[in-house]
């Protein structure tokens, strides 16, 4: 118990434990982002997290709660709007992503009493990881992993072929909503480590590296987790020793791992 306590009292270990927890859920969700071509969508949700932060200060609720709620609302708006087909999806995403980010920044500037570390929010902060954050991360990880295991067959099938999944009786719409909810949750908890601007990178890069080596969907998820671990530990070590910002260091490590994987392996048969 005392060892764990000592570890949790050290901010570096707190950041590392938190980062590994984030990698654990960013792996599988990142695979879905890659499989369903939702990279820009993830980016939009991440950007809207800043709006969530501003709103949390405004109505004084915990940051994580405000971020989750804002992300869910934005996700629902996106789904509803993309159905009307008034605008191309990427245009719509571009509008919402940057508007949400801008509104968040403008709102924060109206609150001079609130001291926020903007750089920390945008790019992650090694020092910011509290014990409460760890609870959020691992609580969120348990919920997300439980949902993924339970709904795996349906999520996979509706990703492979939505209409086939629907004819075979999978609740495709509900599964999509659950997936959005999980994205919102992972953004809320990953924000502390890599910052809102770089969350999508932590989702996509490990999954893309894993694709090169994987033969089954589950294999790819497992490898994406491993690549996530590598990125987080490498990035935090870099940040610790060279005093570089945490988020960018994690992403740089993920990118290096990606480059090494792609240059040393041939395309797999699967």
């Amino acid at each position, binding site marked *: 118990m005392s060892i764990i306590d000592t570890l949790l009292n050290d901010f570096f270990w707190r950041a590392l434990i938190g980062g590994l927890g984030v990698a654990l859920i960013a792996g599988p969700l990142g695979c879905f982002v890659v499989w369903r071509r939702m990279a820009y969508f993830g980016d939009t949700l991440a950007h809207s997290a800043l709006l969530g932060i501003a709103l949390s200060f405004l109505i004084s609720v915990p940051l994580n709660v405000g971020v989750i709620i804002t992300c869910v609302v934005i996700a629902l708006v996106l789904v509803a709007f993309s159905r009307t087909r008034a605008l191309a999806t990427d245009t719509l995403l571009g509008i919402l992503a940057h508007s949400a980010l801008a509104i968040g920044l403008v709102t924060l500037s109206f609150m001079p009493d609130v001291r926020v570390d903007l750089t920390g929010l945008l790019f992650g902060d090694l020092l910011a990881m509290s014990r409460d954050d760890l609870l959020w991360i691992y609580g969120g990880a348990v919920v997300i992993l439980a949902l993924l295991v339970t709904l795996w067959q349906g999520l996979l099938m509706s990703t492979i072929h939505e209409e*086939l999944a*629907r004819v075979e009786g999978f609740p495709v719409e509900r599964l999509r909503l659950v997936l959005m909810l999980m994205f919102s949750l992972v953004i809320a908890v990953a924000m502390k480590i890599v910052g809102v601007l770089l969350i999508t990178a932590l989702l996509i890069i490990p999954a893309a590296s894993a694709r090169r080596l994987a033969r089954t969907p589950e294999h790819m998820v497992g490898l994406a987790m491993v690549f996530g671990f590598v990125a987080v530990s490498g990035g935090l070590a870099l940040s610790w020793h060279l005093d570089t910002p945490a988020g960018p260091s994690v992403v740089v490590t993920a990118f290096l791992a990606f480059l090494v994987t792609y240059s040393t392996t041939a395309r797999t048969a699967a």
Partner: protein
Amino acid sequence: MTDPLVTLDNLTVRFDDRPAVDRVNLSVHRGDIITIIGPNGAGKTTLIKALLGLQPVTSGKVQRATGLVIGYVPQNLQMEATLPLSVKRFMALSGRRRSECLKALARTGIEHLANASVHHLSGGEKQRLLLARALARKPDLLVLDEPAQGVDINGQAALYDLIRELRDELRCGVLMISHDLHLVMAATDKVICLNQHVCCSGFPADISHDPAFIDTFGRSVAESVAVYHHHHNHRHNLHGDVVPGQSSSADTHGDSCDHVHH
């Protein structure tokens, strides 16, 4: 006659006030092979999507028999190359037992590809995989959207033969969309010519003489199909023996066939 597997009752689907499917009545029974033909934009795919519950219906009704298991073969299997997936795994996702999945693969002649990646299949192999997947579900009704797409001519004839055999083995109903008029005419029991509404329907041998069919496809196509049938007024059974052809007049003719153009 047994109860129909699925019945469309005055089914209408509109997109922005333009009817894509206009007051279509249709029922599919066990043992039927019904092929929907029609020009591009005739609403063929919309019709079967409405039947499958994938497309909201504007008015009219789709009635499916209770507990109906549908095997659906979509138009083409465009899969995300970032998702590593083997043929075996894709089959297993049907939720059926391994032995049944392998049997279905063997039945469609691609058991040797069980360990291959789905991303490396040819057009014909993909269609057979989709058919095997539908088959593993032991469907009461098989719905196929242009099953022969991307399949060469020899493969097409073999594929339609296979569909007929499966109908006999599973005692299921078959509803499909096809563009290959000649093959359709040879391989199907009943043809429905769709152009938003049902232009005409009936046995293949007779429908090519139907004025509505000639209107829809043009005289040259209708004649080429008719000529084809003149030379092939018999059928082969599964062993290749000649069996007497069916002769009967087109059994229905859409009564809304006045072809008013807006």
